[in-house]
């Protein structure tokens, strides 16, 4: 099978239409299973009590926030290198989901931090770099929104995305050193006891659910972007007229 076959918007559109229900169903089932394990099967943590269950949302969201930024950079690089319209559409479709996961990670982190550390926010290296990652997402989306011409908007966003991806590790380490050089780390995020297996499983299932959800939502967004961009073409016209 030729993979490039689906790189054209007209073939991608029906494929995405078929994949969306599949990924949505997977996301739903995995989320139900994951939530069941995290709330009813996983034991209460002997140090942190029930409050630790926030990590079943928090950790998958944080993973996805970083992963999606890298995936966006991947599509941006492909788009810039081979000039494929669909890669830019995928990069653009992923951005709001990534920003959402970053926000969820920060928000649930604050909820977890309050009972555990006694503070909603500390300038820990991971928290700070997650916050800056959120700013990077906002920057890419703001730039894409400010440019009306889709071609320029795609390319500008992709370039910024790539610059951001080079910078993310630098920012992470700079913040880490800043933190350790400034003051002795007051709170450590690395929990000392190794996690119970069942907790790890719950987290992995939830991460998979988040992953499937991200794919489904990105495909929905990509589909509407395709329709918007290709509205003057014959196949979109035929598609729209074919429907009652």
């Amino acid at each position: 099978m030729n993979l490039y076959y689906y790189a054209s918007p007209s073939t991608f559109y029906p494929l995405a239409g078929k994949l969306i229900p599949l990924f949505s169903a997977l996301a739903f089932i995995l989320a139900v299973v994951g939530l069941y394990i995290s709330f009813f099967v996983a034991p209460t943590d002997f140090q942190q009590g029930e409050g630790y269950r926030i990590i079943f949302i928090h950790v998958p969201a944080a993973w996805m926030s970083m992963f999606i930024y890298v995936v966006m950079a991947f599509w941006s690089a492909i788009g810039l290198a081979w000039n494929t319209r669909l890669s830019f559409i995928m990069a653009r479709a992923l951005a709001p989901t990534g920003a959402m996961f970053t926000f969820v990670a920060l928000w649930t982190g604050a909820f977890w931090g309050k009972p555990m550390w006694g503070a909603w926010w500390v300038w820990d290296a991971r928290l700070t770099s997650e916050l800056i990652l959120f700013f990077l997402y906002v920057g890419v989306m703001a730039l894409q929104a400010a440019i009306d011409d889709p071609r320029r908007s795609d390319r500008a966003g992709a370039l910024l995305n790539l610059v951001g991806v080079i910078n993310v590790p630098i920012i992470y380490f700079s913040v880490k050193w800043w933190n350790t050089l400034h003051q002795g780390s007051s709170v450590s995020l690395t929990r000392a006891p190794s996690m119970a297996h069942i907790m790890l499983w719950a987290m992995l299932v939830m991460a998979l659910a988040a992953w499937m959800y991200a794919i489904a939502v990105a495909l929905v967004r990509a589909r509407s972007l395709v329709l918007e961009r290709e509205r003057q073409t014959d196949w979109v016209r035929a598609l729209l007229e074919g429907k009652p």
Partner: protein
Amino acid sequence: MLKFFFTVIRRDVLLAARRRGDWLTAQFFFVMVVSMFPLGVGPEPTMLRTIGPGVVWVAALLASLLSLDRLFADDYRDGTLEQMLLSPYPTSLLTLGKAIAHWIINGIPLLVIAPVLGIQFNLPNEALWMLVLSLAIGTPILSLLGSIGAALTLGLRGGGVLVTLLILPLYVPALIFGAGAVEGILSGTGSEAQLSLLGAFLMMSLLLAPWVSAMALRVSVE
């Protein structure tokens, strides 16, 4: 090729010298922002000394951002930029020249003003020197990374605010290492590490930023 490079720098510096009003605005912005902080947090000398390096550095970031939206915009409006892009020389040389000119116009004056502002914040002598040194290594980074933002937002409505949104997160390492170097002097832990890292970041920006900025310029102008 070198001649082209120096012509770009010379031209921009000359243009700035002929329009002193624009140029002074950014410098006074820097002075005023820094001077607002003691009014806001109170005149306690030990506290001013702790926040001093950070405040001067943040103000330097903002001042450099303030002048960025004019980096390419004036040339873009009167068509000069397109002519420059049509020239046979690599575009990255143009963006590098522009960034260096921006540093000469906006970065070097900051180095001269910063020690005076440092005195306001009760910084000791060695810390003042370190502030100048860290700004000398750090402000070229601001101009180089900023040129990417200026090229990306060329000719957009609300370009000035947008540049801030795009570029400030990228400035974070420069801010941390720059202010950290001065902090190191104040707390006696030394500042070689931060200066080396700042220098490494400068080298990386010098290598990549003109190139990315040239690509961004091509995207924006085409």
